[in-house]
């Protein structure tokens, strides 16, 4: 563990050096992401200017859920963004070879190569919205609840990572799973709003099949006093562990099925 932390530091330092080699690209990326985030909030504001309450949820409550959703998403985006390249091209071109030739966990190696600073856009906006809505709603939290909050945020990030890992790993068999990954990743948009506004099939899918519901709405409703501790918090934790076990198993089997490419 200690060794991996120190390795991560090394990789991070090297990545920063690479970023500075291409700093214009880095800056434009950062600006672009900020704009996307701002337009998301503007959209939300425009809707609620017309409808003050949605299916029993007030504007502030929705902002809380929306903000909450950004944090695990941002955390995962920050750390594991490199999983996208697994779904795109490195398998078909045989470039995955190099991750298998080092005496470190290949998933760690792949993921630690890139730290996606764009994600700070999501993280900052998310944290700001959560704090703002908590003040508005006059929610007070105990020390234990802060710990539970951190637990659900990390669990949510693990769910994001697992879903990405699972669909990206399919490319070990089908060579390119980028579209499938993108389609499923897009389902996460549903979790930014209360699940009760959706029809039953959608609710079932994002709770039990592609469990994005656990990355935002389900844990967030506990902190809004609309759900109980067991389902919302421990359910989220369990969903995270289960998703990761499934995804990691598929990843391991994918490596076994990896065919490299002719050289």
């Amino acid at each position, binding site marked *: 563990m200690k060794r991996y932390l120190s390795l991560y530091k090394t990789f991070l330092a090297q990545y920063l050096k690479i970023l500075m080699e291409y700093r214009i690209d880095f800056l434009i990326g950062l600006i672009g992401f900020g704009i996307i985030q701002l337009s998301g909030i503007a959209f939300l504001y425009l809707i609620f200017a017309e409808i003050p309450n949605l299916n029993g949820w007030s504007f502030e409550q929705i902002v809380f859920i929306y903000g909450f959703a950004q944090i695990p998403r941002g955390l995962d985006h920050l750390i594991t963004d490199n999983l996208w390249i697994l779904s795109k091209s490195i398998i078909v071109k045989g470039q995955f*070879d190099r991750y298998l*030739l080092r005496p*470190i966990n290949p998933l760690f190696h792949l993921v630690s190569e890139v730290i996606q600073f764009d994600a700070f856009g999501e993280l900052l906006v998310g944290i700001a919205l959560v704090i703002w809505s908590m003040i508005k709603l006059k929610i007070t939290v105990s020390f234990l609840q802060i710990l539970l909050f951190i637990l659900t945020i990390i669990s949510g990030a693990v769910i994001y990572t697992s879903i990405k890992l699972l669909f990206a790993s399919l490319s070990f068999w089908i060579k390119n799973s980028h579209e499938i990954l993108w389609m499923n990743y897009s389902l996460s948009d549903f979790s930014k709003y209360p699940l009760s506004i959706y029809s039953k099939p959608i609710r079932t899918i994002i709770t039990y099949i592609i469990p994005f519901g656990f990355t935002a709405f389900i844990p967030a409703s506990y902190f809004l006093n609309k759900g109980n501790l067991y389902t919302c918090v421990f359910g989220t934790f369990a969903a995270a562990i289960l998703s990761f076990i499934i995804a990691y198993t598929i990843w391991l089997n994918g490596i076994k099925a990896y065919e490299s490419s002719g050289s």
Partner: protein
Amino acid sequence: MIYVENLSKEFCIYKRQPGILGSLKGIFKRDIEIKKAIENISFNINKGEMVGYIGANGAGKSTTIKIMTGILTPTSGKCQVNGITPYENRTANAQHIGVVFGQRTQLWWDLPLSETFTILKKIYNIPEDQYNTRMEFLSEVLDLDSFIKYPVRTLSLGQRMRADLASALIHNPKVLFLDEPTIGLDIVVKEKIRKAIKFINQEYETTIILTTHDLQDIEELCDRIIIIDSGKKVYDGNIKNIKKDYGYITTIEATFSNKNDLSLSNLSFGFKLDSQDLNLNIEDNKIIIRFNNKKVAVSQIIACLINEVQIKDLHIYEMGIEDIIKNMYKAGELNA
């Protein structure tokens, strides 16, 4: 050190029909063809040996190397490197092996070369003093100092290959796999790389497995060769005899300027050899002579040639691996 038994690897290949209609059809129904990349390969390699692993393109060389390095999992059979099964215990295996793929660099593309070594030091957990002595040794043998500060993407192919070799050796591996380490390099760099490989093998008793198309690599480096063809092992043994017994056809290609009345009969040289051992061909103002160098010396052929024509340009080719394998089949040495 390396122990391979009955190793086989199959790949599924999906055949597509040509054209757009064909590829649409392929969505619903695909013909699967199972291709055996390697079949029942067995061999043992001892510590400190330098073995040439050769065969034509697509014979299965890289597949075997990739199984031994842990990249591929075989369909059946056993493989152990230093007592470890590579594809089951990948990270433990990786700590003890070094790999160079001539076609594909493993250096950090956007960073100065020196940074690659810093990262590798961390990855392989190399103690400071060992790292320093190793680095000093490698810089000297491979002459890295002149370009170690440059970003890898700016290096020439020759520099990059030397850097790749150094990066595969930085953790003092027990086994070194070299997959075409001299491909695309000029003679001077090739020579440097060969010298370095030889030196490392002698100094550290590193076991080395080398695949290449360059017979000269093999001749200079390896005492033992393993030949595979169409996925099967066809020869395992000494290299010296192979060339003498099967690589005896030399080809001379000469371009000449006086075109006038040159005919094949003028050029039969009076050696009294049958067409198996001496074979002439004239195309425009180029003459191609294939001959058995056990029966006629190169110098004799050239001497005769000079008498007949004015040579503008002259090339001498030794036999390639593909032809040697063909000859071995012909001689009944191999069972087809």
